[in-house]
């Protein structure tokens, strides 16, 4: 595939043409939107997921609600793809449940001009599987926050707020950032949901790869697909390298 990224589709000769095509304004714009989507959903999912994880952990280790929620989070984090798109279409699509209720009740048109099928819709839908993933990866970090630290802080006269501001949050920051990076890679790589939801245009990189691979108009586009896939690998590799670095810092203080 990497070789294919540097080959000409018709002749097989080596070329930089495919890589150069990545710098075209359309390709750059797609990459920008893809990163925007991944970053937004990673931050949203990260913050909401961290709050949910804290709520779950505060229930105490023997709580049934906590166990159930963690199991459900495990299921929901896997719940991407075609059916997730269907679920949101049935909620917010043109004849979706919430759309109809709001239309007939207070007369609010939540459907708008079909925003669900564009970038904004993708942000809402992606957040749905980002939050449970955050819960799964962040809960161990919260559990690793030793109660002794809090006791020590309180003994030294710290208030609850002071404890969180000066001990808890600084300790959890690397774990939080690491989890957010993981979420970023997760959203960046997601394809199926977007493929079903978005049928017009190619707002994000995975969809651009689809059109390059399945294009019937232009032959030789496959090698552009290879180049785009290479671009995705590079982005994911950078994110994962940062993640590994952060993980090393985190493991020093937690457990």
């Amino acid at each position, binding site marked *: *595939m990497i070789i294919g990224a540097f080959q000409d589709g018709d002749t097989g000769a080596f070329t930089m043409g495919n890589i150069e095509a990545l710098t075209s304004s359309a390709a750059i714009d797609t990459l920008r939107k893809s990163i925007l989507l991944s970053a937004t959903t990673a931050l949203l999912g990260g913050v*909401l997921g961290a*709050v*949910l994880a804290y*709520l779950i*952990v*505060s229930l*105490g*280790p*023997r709580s049934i*609600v*906590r*166990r159930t*929620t*963690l*199991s*459900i989070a*495990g*299921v929901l984090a*896997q*719940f*991407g*793809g*075609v*059916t*997730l798109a*269907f*679920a*949101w*279409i*049935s*909620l917010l699509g043109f004849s*979706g*449940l*919430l759309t109809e209720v709001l239309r007939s009740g207070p007369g609010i048109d939540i459907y708008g001009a079909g925003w669900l099928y564009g970038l904004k819709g993708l942000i809402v839908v992606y957040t*749905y599987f980002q*939050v*449970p993933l955050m819960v799964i990866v962040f809960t161990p970090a919260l*559990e*690793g926050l030793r*109660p002794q630290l809090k006791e020590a802080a309180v003994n030294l006269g710290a208030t609850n707020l002071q404890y969180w501001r000066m001990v808890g949050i600084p300790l959890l920051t690397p774990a939080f950032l690491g989890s957010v990076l993981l979420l970023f890679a997760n959203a*960046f*790589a997601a*394809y*199926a949901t977007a*493929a*079903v939801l978005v049928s017009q245009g190619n707002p994000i990189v*995975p969809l651009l*790869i*689809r059109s390059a*691979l*399945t294009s019937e108009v232009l032959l030789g586009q*496959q090698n552009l*697909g*290879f180049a785009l*896939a290479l671009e*995705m*690998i590079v982005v*994911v590799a950078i994110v*994962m390298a940062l993640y590994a670095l952060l993980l090393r810092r985190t493991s020093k203080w937690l457990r």
Partner: protein
Amino acid sequence: MKAGGGFRIVRAVLLGLFALYFFLPLISMANFSVQGKGPLKGTITFHYYAELVRNEDLRSAIISSLLLAVLTVVLMVVLLVPTMIWVRLRTPGLSRLVEFLCLLPLTVPPLVIVVGISNVYTWVNYLLGDSPQVLAFAYVVLVLPYSYRSIDSALSAIDVATLAEAARSLGANWLTVITRIVLPNIVSGVLGAAFITIALVLGEYVFASLLHYDTMPVALAAIYKSETSTAIAGGFASIVVISLLLLGLSFFNRNQAPDVGGQKE
């Protein structure tokens, strides 16, 4: 962490809001799939679930997805279980490498893997025909990270070396050791691996759609514009099955590690 009264109320409200956010799309999906449309308007009906079986294309797609799931599970168990037992017993030095190889598919986006193997699959089609079942080879790779984790934790819970030595000294050959001594001891781990494999295969869309095979998710995505209710009914049915499998999985994992509730020393 101690919880004061005010915090308790805030927590309950927030947990409720989260639950609402997560269950509303599912509820609306269930609602959508039983609401009659067109001539059936205004009635509650299971017509669209029946349609899943009545529609020829959908039925064959669902059957091939189920076959594919079974095939992938068989392939995964046959490949992974003997390899992992062998590595544990005879070449422990290789275990890091095997672990790395098994976790590799997690870091490469599936879409990229598809782009990479699309050329391979022209040959696979040429050699083995173009039934969707050939996807099992790709899916085995895809489920490796999850099934590896599950089987590995089951293997670490038992003393494989002692069991194998005892069996060997009583005259068992390696096949007997693997199938009749070790396998029965790690059956919960293998079942867990099988569950997550089935769940992943039933929902997999990226490989199937880009390599042009008609599995269930692909068929559902293809008809959702024209027969939305049927597609959503199919989607909801598959969610129910997959969720049950994954919840079953977390049940198995809990049996393996009773302190999963987070009791830390």
